[in-house]
């Protein structure tokens, strides 16, 4: 724990706070089915119950009498799940393409960059909407859609890191020593490119959660899953009567995304110093 990374990370108070909130959300998500008192889809109480009026329904109920607190707990599960999985997929695609483009350069790089640019030219949320709509909403299609719109920035970052690192003398020395290309990419270059990738990954999970909730808000969420976005969406037409239906799930999203951003900044601080003590 006393490693230089943790020392720098913990110096950032915001990052520490973010980490705490994030851990709380993760714990809630993991323990979900055991701490939620009701089935989120169960119509167990009178509709439009105000928060803090009935014990056991701390955050009130929605238009169909469903418990909002339980809904939020299950929503945490789905948001984190989709956020994490789609980020991993986007990273896999982006790192692979970026590494190839950055390492080999030339025509390969030019072709891959054109390909990436097409994806970036399109408004990503609109593309996500179209993808999920066409392939029918489900956890799988949402994860795929988010991954498809999120990989270009990763590819660009990895490409630029690889382009720089490829020219570094220690890579040239490895070439002279006769190391094979895959070995050089994996053991020489990639470890040095990991820091910015890790920071970007945490920010990507945040963006993925925002994307997923936006899709659910529009009605494109998985119909079998209670998600925060869906809860806010169902509050849209009854805002006057039931403001709490929109407030609490939204706050959950804000807090989780904020926590992820703060952790991302802490990671950036923690990983920033280059091991040789010089700035890159």
């Amino acid at each position, binding site marked *: 724990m006393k490693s230089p990374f943790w020392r720098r990370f913990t110096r950032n108070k*915001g990052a520490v706070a973010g980490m705490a909130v994030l851990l709380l959300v993760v714990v809630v998500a993991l323990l979900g089915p055991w701490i939620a008192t009701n089935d989120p889809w169960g119509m167990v109480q009178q509709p439009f119950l105000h928060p803090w009026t009935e014990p056991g329904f701390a955050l009130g109920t929605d238009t169909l009498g469903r418990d909002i607190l339980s809904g939020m707990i299950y929503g945490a599960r789905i948001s984190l799940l989709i956020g994490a999985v789609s980020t991993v997929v986007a990273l896999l695609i982006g790192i692979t393409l970026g590494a190839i483009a950055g390492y080999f350069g030339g025509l390969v790089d030019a072709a891959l960059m054109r390909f990436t*640019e*097409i994806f*970036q*030219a*399109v*408004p*990503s*949320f*609109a*593309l996500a*909407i*179209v*993808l999920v*709509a*066409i*392939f*029918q909403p489900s956890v799988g299609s949402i994860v795929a859609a988010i991954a498809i719109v999120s990989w270009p920035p990763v590819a660009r970052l990895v490409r630029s890191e690889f382009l720089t690192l490829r020219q570094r003398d220690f890579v040239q020395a490895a070439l002279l020593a006769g190391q094979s290309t895959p070995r050089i990419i994996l053991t020489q270059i990639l470890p040095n490119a990991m820091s910015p990738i890790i920071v970007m990954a945490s920010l990507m999970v*945040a963006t993925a959660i*925002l994307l997923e*909730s*936006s899709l659910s*808000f*529009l*009605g*494109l969420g998985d119909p079998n899953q209670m998600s925060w*976005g869906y809860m*806010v*969406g169902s*509050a*849209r037409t009854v*805002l*006057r009567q039931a*403001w709490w239906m*929109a*407030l609490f799930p*939204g706050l959950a*999203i*804000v*807090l989780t*995304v*904020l926590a992820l*951003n*703060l952790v991302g900044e802490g990671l950036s601080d923690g990983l920033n110093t280059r091991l040789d003590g010089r700035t890159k």
Partner: protein
Amino acid sequence: MQRLQFMLARVLQGLVAIMLIATVNFMLVRAAPGDPVSVLAGEAGASDAQFVAQLRTQFGLDQPITTQLATYLGKVVRLDLGFSYRQQQPVLKLILDRLPATLLLTGSAFALSLLFGVTLGALSARRAGTWVDSSITVIALIFYATPLYWLALMAVLVFTVQLAWLPGFGFSTVGSGLTGFALAWDIAQHLVLPALTLALFYMAVYARMTRAAMLDVAQMDFVKTARAKGVKPGRILRAHVLRNALLPVVTLAGIQAGGMIGGAVLTETVFAWPGIGRLMFDALLQRDYSLLLGAFLVTAAMAVLFNLITDFVYTLVDPRIELT
């Protein structure tokens, strides 16, 4: 002259990009579960057998795939984006009707976000380490984490439902028959909430970027040279730091434009703003895929156009760009 050549090349690239996106549309329709024709007809049109048969011949769905693609792209070039059975109008017309409203919304949101974002970011950098900096940074962080649609709903809740300061729905007061300046004022009032909520997220983005860029540039050698010449701090900030820090912000603005156009979908939905975003939402509800894809293509074209403009602006502000 060089600039003209460069821009022509970029316009060409943009057109190719739009054609490629149209191709993606084409492939999506084919890849969707079910019969492509029912996808094109939409939920409403699929029940009308005559309409379906019409589409089948129009799109040549019994022909080899390359011919189908050529037909489809040919239609796109002629701006024929299909027909919405549900709304009984050509898709293009529906979109063009809505385009001005979206342009007004995204245009004002963009201007607001850049103006306030850069100003706050510069202020934050200038007073780095003080409470001004901390508060701006915290506020930016919060808005950066806030979903657009939720912010919009909260804004409606507070300003329309509770305080009744500003209208929260629509483009203008329905049935009021206002004209001229009074109409413009009415529209402006309706524009405030949607434009502000759309702008706030991006304001945070630009503020963070401006702050980071300015702090970076302030460390650079040429700033030290300026100090060694005895140049006053105000001028150093404006002519040296900000001038260089704006370069990455311009690049970022181009990249974020796509995001803002996508975000307009959410804002327009909440505020019932009659733009393309709202149209996409309606198309979703009605399972009208022709309309959805047509709207998607147009938003993509808008984003491409916007990138072109920012590229052009970038060549104006950075003299180092080699145009030939």
